[in-house]
């Protein structure tokens, strides 16, 4: 602090200081205040008017000058927008003429500082509005291009918190109705759910939220805006505790308008994200189905084998593009026999198609090495058990046909009975002789025999044929199938299959096919 000088010298000094530093505002204040403090006791300070009371702008010398003042103290000079205070032991009337002049110069410098503050605050405010407008524009672009739900929710909430200068926030979303769930919270805990019918929530959306409102426990100031889709609140964006340099306070009306604009864009972005999610799910399912369909197309035989004296025909139609039904013909290496197979894997889609693939490989490996026998089926069972999940199994009808004498040796592992319509018109069933494959390791199987005579027709099928149902849940049943086999005595097998298919479709009367449908027909001509 400069020491007081003699009167004339002091005036000169004052003139020089004012002339030199007053335009410098803050710099002038920093230089003038210590000089004044030297004339006014032990110290002095300048306070500028703040939102509440006065805030200390500068201080010099000793003395207790708190950061905030509620009202002017005894030794003070009030000027437009501020106070100059000094040592209370030196009342205003005791100030020298020079000190009074110096006090006016300090006040002038302080006013300039305050003007600079105001201009700066206005500039900052204008730039902040620019940031908000730019941010709203960006939000439109960013959240419209963010189709992943989780990052989108984070983006929306962070923008809301940032734009409103909030300390906390929460985003609630629902799927229609009044109940909303917490999707994301920022800066502290938030209630896990929000009920739009709740009076407290209604007050929150109307701008009359009470402190410590349910949405953001502990927040002193908060408000919420609805996220509207087709006029209905599908979510709520809540912000809490608006920040300033001196703590938190209430939000302003422009914060509400800004958040409402953000909520409008958020509603569009969230709807887009939901549509995108649905499209991705559909695409994923279609890819899965296509993959499984490819697997199955490669497995099912391209054509039926030519066996002299016999007609053979296989047909399959999956329920969901791909399914768990399987049929096959295997010509054995010795050239004497052909293996006929119809199987049904529990379930549909890719898992079922993969198990069909396993069955196909295992069956080819085993059948080419050894004749059909209980032991071969037990090995097949163990292979399937090891390859399948706990709840998957396969019903299987596998038969070895010796064309020369019509002998049919077969194992029916839990499958629908095979049917033989004799040339005489009699019907013979080939019932199950073991449990489905893949259920237990200890499963046992037995072979059985039948003989196809000239004019006889063997029909192997899956339950997708006999269990095809009408809208009233009436099933097609085995009797209708048998009837069709009876009327198709003279038909080529391809035509017979087509007539069975037509009959099943007509019977279902528009009800979508629920299960895979498979037919394998063998007729002995001579």
């Amino acid at each position, binding site marked *: 602090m400069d020491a007081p000088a003699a009167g004339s010298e002091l005036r000169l000094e004052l003139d020089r200081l004012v002339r030199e530093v007053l335009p410098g505002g803050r710099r002038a204040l920093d230089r003038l205040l210590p000089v004044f403090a030297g004339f006014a006791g032990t110290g002095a300070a300048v306070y500028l008017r703040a939102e509440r009371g006065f805030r200390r702008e500068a201080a010099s010398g000793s003395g207790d000058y708190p950061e905030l003042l509620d009202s002017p103290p005894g030794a003070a000079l009030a000027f437009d927008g501020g106070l100059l205070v000094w040592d209370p032991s030196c009342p205003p009337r005791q100030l020298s003429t020079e000190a009074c002049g110096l006090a006016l110069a300090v006040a002038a410098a302080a006013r300039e500082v305050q003007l600079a503050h105001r201009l700066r605050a206005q500039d*900052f405010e204008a*730039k*902040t509005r*620019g*940031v908000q407008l*730019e*941010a709203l524009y*960006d939000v439109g672009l*960013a959240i419209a291009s963010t189709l992943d739900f989780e990052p989108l929710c*984070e983006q929306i909430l*962070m923008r809301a*918190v*940032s734009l409103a*200068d*909030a*300390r906390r926030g929460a985003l609630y979303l629902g799927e229609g109705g009044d109940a909303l769930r917490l999707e994301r919270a*920022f*800066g502290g805990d938030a209630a896990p759910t929000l009920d739009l019918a709740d009076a407290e929530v209604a007050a929150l959306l109307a701008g009359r939220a009470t402190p410590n409102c349910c949405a953001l426990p502990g927040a002193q100031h908060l408000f919420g805006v609805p996220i509207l889709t087709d006029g209905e609140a599908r979510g709520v964006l809540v912000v809490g505790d608006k*920040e*300033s*340099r001196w*703590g938190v306070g209430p939000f302003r009306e422009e914060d509400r308008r800004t958040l409402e604009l953000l909520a409008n864009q958020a509603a569009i972005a969230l709807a887009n994200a939901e549509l995108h999610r649905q499209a991705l799910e559909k695409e994923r399912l279609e890819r899965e189905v296509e993959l499984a369909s490819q697997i199955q197309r490669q497995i099912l035989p391209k054509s039926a084998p030519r066996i002299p004296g016999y007609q053979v025909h296989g047909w399959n139609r999956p329920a969901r593009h791909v399914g768990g039904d399987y049929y096959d013909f295997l010509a054995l290496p010795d050239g004497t026999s052909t293996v006929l197979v119809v199987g049904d894997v529990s379930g549909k889609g890719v898992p079922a198609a993969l198990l069909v693939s396993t069955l196909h490989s295992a069956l080819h490996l085993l059948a080419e090495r050894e004749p059909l026998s209980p032991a071969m089926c037990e090995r097949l069972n163990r292979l399937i058990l090891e390859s399948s999940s706990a709840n998957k199994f396969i019903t299987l009808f596998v038969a070895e046909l010796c064309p020369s004498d019509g002998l049919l040796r077969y194992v029916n592992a839990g499958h629908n009975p095979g049917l033989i319509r004799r040339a005489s018109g009699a019907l013979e069933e080939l019932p199950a002789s073991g449990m489905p494959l893949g259920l237990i390791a200890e499963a046992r199987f037995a072979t059985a025999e039948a003989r196809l005579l000239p004019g006889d027709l063997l029909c192997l099928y899956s339950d997708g044929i006999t269990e095809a149902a009408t809208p009233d849940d009436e099933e097609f049943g085995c009797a209708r199938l048998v009837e069709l086999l009876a009327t198709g005595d003279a038909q080529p097998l391809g035509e017979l299959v087509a007539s069975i298919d037509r009959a099943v479709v007509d019977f279902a009367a528009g009800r979508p096919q629920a299960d895979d449908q498979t037919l394998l027909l063998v007729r002995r001509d001579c």
Partner: protein
Amino acid sequence: MTESLKLTIDRRDGLAVIYTEGYINNQGGEEIARAAYLLLDEGHRKLLLNLTGTKIINSIGISILIEIIEKMLEVEGKLAFCALTPTIEKTFHIMGLAQYAAIFPDEVAAVSGLAT
């Protein structure tokens, strides 16, 4: 994401780097200011604020960063920012911070830029 700000300071020869993680709001900004003024008191005149871990800033945080920049200008020091999100970088340009403090895409570029 971390919400309250965490700071890490790396003092190097001729440069100090302040790493931020979390929300730069009033509290976060003041923490940065405390760290920056401490580094100034220690004699550092080149400060780098690496905002890799910060995705959100509000206007109060920005006003505090402006104060730090002004302080750096007073002592003829240099302050630079790096690793800003596009949103924060755009905000810095609009608010005028970029006029007085350099902005670099990453720390390597910033260290090189501050060395000149």
